């Protein structure tokens, strides 16, 4: 396990390094002056300021010197300075990170839990109307644009029914503390987390259903049935445990999509996470912040992949043995 973890960590660092190099290349491939890109100005930047940026980042130096300067800065945790927000990008991102983590982890748990449950139900009732209904709903959610689903949820649950708050993370200047504040945040979390979760739930339903049906046909399930075990025990202990493996793999692969979905959901719900920060950076052409969010969200995905890999090993003892 330790060797596995060590190997994965080395790989993660290498991938992050490659993403940093990619970022650097993007800045230099962008049409126009890299100093302009860094300053995030549309072309009316102060020439003195640009000259200062050029010396500061060594833009007059040879290519490899610049690359080294950029990469070493990022690896030290320095993601540059947001001239728009007058703040280091890393500080900006750290302020916003908790909100994104709360949102994406809740949405992930929700989609996995409900998705596997619905998939198991659909598989158990294969061919009946409840199976068709679950599959049809999953297909529909899978085809719905996430941001549109979010808008429609606001329209229905906030504007029409007035059940839940439509925007933000908590009530501004409410002065709430402790449990009352946590409850307030939870109320604000319901709509964003549910819409983000429903989209991914659709895939988990489909894969769980297919996987359950496939495992159901295997010999060891027949044996369990022949032994006279109760069907519910067979489904839970024999079938589900094996059928869940492709779901875990898929969940790992979906980490990137979850981050992308969070960008859209945070934009719609004004949820103050790094996704919303990305949208704000886009609006103000603040490329330093944009690229910073990109590096951090990639790191999040890698971390998430690592967690699903560990989960996989816990669920599937065969890997541990080999």
């Amino acid at each position, binding site marked *: 396990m330790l060797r596995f973890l060590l190997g994965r960590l080395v790989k993660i660092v290498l*991938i992050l390094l*490659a*993403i940093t190099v990619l970022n650097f290349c*993007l*800045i230099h*491939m*962008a*049409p126009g002056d890299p100093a302009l*890109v860094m300053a995030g100005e549309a072309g009316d930047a102060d020439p003195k300021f640009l000259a200062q940026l050029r010396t500061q980042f060594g833009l007059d130096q040879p290519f490899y010197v610049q690359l080294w300067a950029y990469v070493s800065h990022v690896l030290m945790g320095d993601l540059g300075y947001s001239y728009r927000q007058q703040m280091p990008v890393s500080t900006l991102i750290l302020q916003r990170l908790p909100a994104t983590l709360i949102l994406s982890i809740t949405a992930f748990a929700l989609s996995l839990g409900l998705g596997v449950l619905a998939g198991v139900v659909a598989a158990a009732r294969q061919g009946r109307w409840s199976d068709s209904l679950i599959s049809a709903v999953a*297909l*529909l959610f*899978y*085809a*719905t*644009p*996430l*941001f*549109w689903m979010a*808008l*429609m949820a*606001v*329209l229905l649950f906030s*504007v029409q029914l007035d059940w839940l708050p439509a925007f933000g993370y908590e009530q501004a200047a409410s002065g709430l503390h402790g449990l009352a504040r946590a409850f307030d945040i939870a109320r604000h979390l319901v709509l964003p987390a549910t819409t983000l979760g429903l989209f991914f739930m659709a*895939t988990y339903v*489909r*894969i769980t259903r*297919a996987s359950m*049906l*496939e495992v159901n046909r295997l010999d060891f399930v027949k044996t369990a049935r022949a032994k006279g075990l109760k069907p519910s025990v067979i489904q839970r202990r024999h079938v589900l445990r094996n059928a869940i493996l*492709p779901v875990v793999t*898929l969940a790992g*692969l979906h*980490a*990137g*999509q979850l*981050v*992308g*979905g969070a*960008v*859209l959901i945070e*934009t*719609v719900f004004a949820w103050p996470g790094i996704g919303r920060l*990305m*949208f704000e950076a*886009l*609006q103000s*052409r603040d*490329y330093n912040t*944009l*690229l910073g*969010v*990109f590096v951090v*969200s*990639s790191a*999040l*995905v*890698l971390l998430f*992949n690592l967690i699903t890999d560990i989960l996989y090993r816990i669920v599937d003892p065969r890997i541990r043995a080999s």
Partner: protein
Amino acid sequence: MSEFWKAYCRNRGAVVGLVILAVVLILSIVAPFWFPGSPWDMVQMPFLPPFQEGDAILGTDTLGRDIASGLAHGAYVSLLVGFVSTLVSLAIGIPIGAAAGYFGGWVDDILSRITEFFQVIPAFAFAIVLVAIFQPSITSIIVAIAVVSWPPVARLLRGEVMSLKHREFIEAAALSGQSGFTIIWRQILPNTISPVIVLSSMMVATAILTESALDFMGLGDPNIMSWGYIIGAGRTVLQQAWWISFFPGVAILLTVLAFNLIGEGLNDALNPRLSKRRD
């Protein structure tokens, strides 16, 4: 062909998908004749609700532009971006996957690392960065979507090629003196075509979703009316004018659904043995 058609039609959803796609295609073709003016023109008073007397059957937006006209003109953009970006990602993914699978060894190592790298980067965030840095235009959107969506193609091709390359007809071709590239092009690729077609159909669906999301974020081509743009523009006035954001979303939903359904039908028809292996 008729057998293929019969197998396809056995999946009723797939037929529905084909009908929806046909409607969207026809809409995109007749849009310039049905709504001859520019979709950016003001035709009525702003915030006109839908299903009223007059020209704008689906209502107007904040600047009095006809939503129905925007929908019709946007159909063309969605289909164009969906198809072209999928073709470009096939053009990237097929050679990389085929080379990795056929040559193996260090070629496979390097190409698989590259594929894995692109797969691990959060796709939508990467697409946003690409379009923002290279300035929003229809070309940068297509390239960005292609760059983030080719890894599954490469992985599929690599697997297919690896399972094919030890078959007798490939060994016979190698013995007859054909070069590696000829064997890949003439012997192997034709045999991988059906899973690629199924995957492409799903990729068009994802590409349309991504394109609309980019437009929604304000990264659309500023000269082109698209479904995502209309939703984004109507977002701030959602309370007063639900219809601005509602109808384009339905259009996206139906089009994406159509491609997913068609993909399933193609899967049933082309890979009858594999048709239960869906995700």
